[in-house]
């Protein structure tokens, strides 16, 4: 099947089948990375704009690499030098970009709803690369891809997300995506960082870290925004590390097979100890690699690509760039 919407705004909007379609396509694209020339001509002649109004390093590079590996023409929008800084509205900026006849726009914005808004206004496909604390669907997909590589079918598996749930777009996308695939999601963090209503999105809330990790198959650790400490959300880095930091001691309370994920960037020895961050149970760099494959899959499918062309396809049939 192909995706129903021209946009990818959030995993909430995707069906289980659509998620699986993207993940299968991503696995196919992943094989390209092992070739001597890591590039295919699928998006040749198409233009993608990376519209990053909020600072980002890894997500922007990951999208840019994905686009380049698909041979798209790309334009990078630098928010610090843009008309947005001169008071232009998002709509005016977007309509100007549209007037330049582009095919796809990848948007990162600090306002929840910004990507959905652009999706409504623009004819081009819109990919949400993170809108405030709302959703970060490609991060959710790459997390799920990484989990499936380790665990296979996620039905019945337990994923524990630890950290600032309230402010996390990654947590929301994870909850939507994982529960659609049948996984159980537990969220854990200080009560000031876990809104009670998160349970209604499909997650179990647990404030005791040891109980939260006890029978988990995966720990997904979120970055703590250190600037939030000045807003009295938590008492300090030391206290946070003592209560919610994932250390080797915490890992002793998990299943031996349980592995550790982090969307980055990490605050070492705050939410994750260096020993765990560099230890044998982390899959953090696999996540980063999978991110490029997932983004290639999303771009390919949103631009009308047929997943059947990939089936074994990217493994064998997708033509390499000559």
């Amino acid at each position, binding site marked *: 099947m192909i995706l129903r919407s021209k946009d990818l705004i959030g995993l909430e909007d995707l069906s289980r089948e659509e998620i699986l379609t993207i993940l299968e396509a991503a696995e196919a694209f992943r094989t390209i990375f092992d070739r001597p020339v890591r590039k295919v001509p699928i998006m040749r002649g198409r233009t993608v704009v990376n519209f990053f109004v909020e600072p980002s390093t890894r997500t922007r590079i990951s999208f840019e690499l994905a686009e380049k590996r698909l041979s798209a023409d790309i334009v990078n929008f630098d928010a610090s030098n843009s008309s947005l800084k001169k008071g232009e*509205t*998002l*709509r005016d900026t977007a309509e100007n970009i549209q007037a330049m006849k582009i095919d796809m726009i990848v948007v990162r*914005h*600090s*306002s*929840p*709803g*910004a990507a*959905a*808004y652009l999706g409504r206004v623009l004819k081009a496909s819109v990919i949400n690369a993170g*809108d*405030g*604390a*709302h*959703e970060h669907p490609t991060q959710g997909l790459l997390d799920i891809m990484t989990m499936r590589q380790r665990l296979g079918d996620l039905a019945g598996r337990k994923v524990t997300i630890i950290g600032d749930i*309230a402010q996390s*777009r990654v947590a*929301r996308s994870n909850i939507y995506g994982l529960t659609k695939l049948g996984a159980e999601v537990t969220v854990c963090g200080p009560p000031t960082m876990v*809104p009670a*209503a*998160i349970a*209604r*999105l499909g997650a179990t809330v647990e404030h005791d870290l040891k109980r939260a990790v006890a029978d988990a198959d995966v720990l997904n650790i979120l970055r703590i925004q250190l600037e939030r400490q000045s*807003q009295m959300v938590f008492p300090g880095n030391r206290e946070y590390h003592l209560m919610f930091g994932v250390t080797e001691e915490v890992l002793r309370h998990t299943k031996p097979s349980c592995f550790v994920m982090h969307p980055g960037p990490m605050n070492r020895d705050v939410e994750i100890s260096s020993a765990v961050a560099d230890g044998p149970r982390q899959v953090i760099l696999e996540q980063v690699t999978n991110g490029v494959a997932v983004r290639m899959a999303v771009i390919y499918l949103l631009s009308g690509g047929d997943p059947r062309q990939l089936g074994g396809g990217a493994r064998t049939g997708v033509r390499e760039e000559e």
Partner: protein
Amino acid sequence: MEWSWKRIPAEYLVANVRLCRDGKLADRPGFLHVQKGLVAALGPGAPSREDLPVLDGGGLVCAPGLVDVHVHFREPGQEEKETIATGSRSAAAGGFTAVVTMPNTRPPVDHAPMVRYILDRAQETGLCRVFPTAAISRGQEGETLTEFGDLVKAGAVGFTDDGRPVMHGKLMQFALQYARVLGVPVTCHAEDLTLAGKGVMHAGYWSTKLGLAGLPRLAEDVMVFRDVELARATGGHLHVAHVSTKGTVEIIRRAREQGVHVTAEVTPHHLTLDHSCCRDFSPLYKMSPPLREQEDIEAVTQGLVDGVLDCVATDHAPHTAMEKELMFDQAPFGVVGLETALAVCHTHLVRTGRLSLGQLMEKMSSRAAETYGLPCGRLEEGGEADFLLFDPDEEWTVQPEALRSMSRNTPYGGHKLAGRVKATFLRGRPTYRDGE
């Protein structure tokens, strides 16, 4: 004799109308005799005099002109959103003949010449009675009291820093003490800013789902509780603006039972819309206080029915289309409401049997006027001929582009409503007629 809308006679009759007075709607046709802007006579049946021009009311409801104790007309300073003239035009289209303006203009209404300026502009426009409130604190900065005596002498009918709360407890206490001596209310915009934080919508399921910062009920409740206790201690008259939570209704209910001088208003949108309206991130549903949950809607509705909440006020807050095109978290708070208020309340309160039409009209006219002690809102012999003609059966769809307000930021665009204002009269002269 034929009655002409174009040339209004000094004396005329409105016949064949159902008079709505003192909370009751007459069940048989009656008449209104207008003479030099005053009500010369009114009552059931047909008038005895046949020599006067007659307007056939066609069985419409004839009620006192509505009174809105909470509007923002934005002049001076933000005339691109609304002026006193356009705001008055919008009020007239909604059946209002009197409004209380909030002082958060730019600059704010914090000294007597500003009050006089607003009164002068309102008189020039002549479409609506305008009663200005003045700021509690200079520049609405929450630090120094304004000159309450001089402001009241100039025509201010009350004090408020609306748009912002008075965070300083002592300042609020002093405001209530001063205002008490002057016989006017102090209106609180109840919001503890330290609890509100950077919230932009109600803190609950939808804010969590959408990833938007939440405004908790506590931010309102805690402040109302403080101000009620200050009113109790000072004997001052506290008016609570735009009540939105079940907790606030209970605090006010208890305080009133205990004899504290508290009045309160509720907006049509808090009576009818909940936080799920924000699901598409549309800033047309961004207001302060925010749209809450069904249990709050039920509590404020019951509060209005019981009389714990005295009246309906719109909190008419115009903003330009460009501002409301911004992202939800960046757009300003507030919606327009003058032209939809009566129909929204009629549809959701009268049609559902929570209030009779007479009770609703009373809460939107005489009861509203009483909260600020205003000399209007009644239809009685010898009184001003401020009235409206209302068709409770006409159904219509709200079209934002058809609003008379300069701004179009209504949350009711596309909503089907029952009941329409057909004409509004101020001092016997029409200020609005449907279709013109």
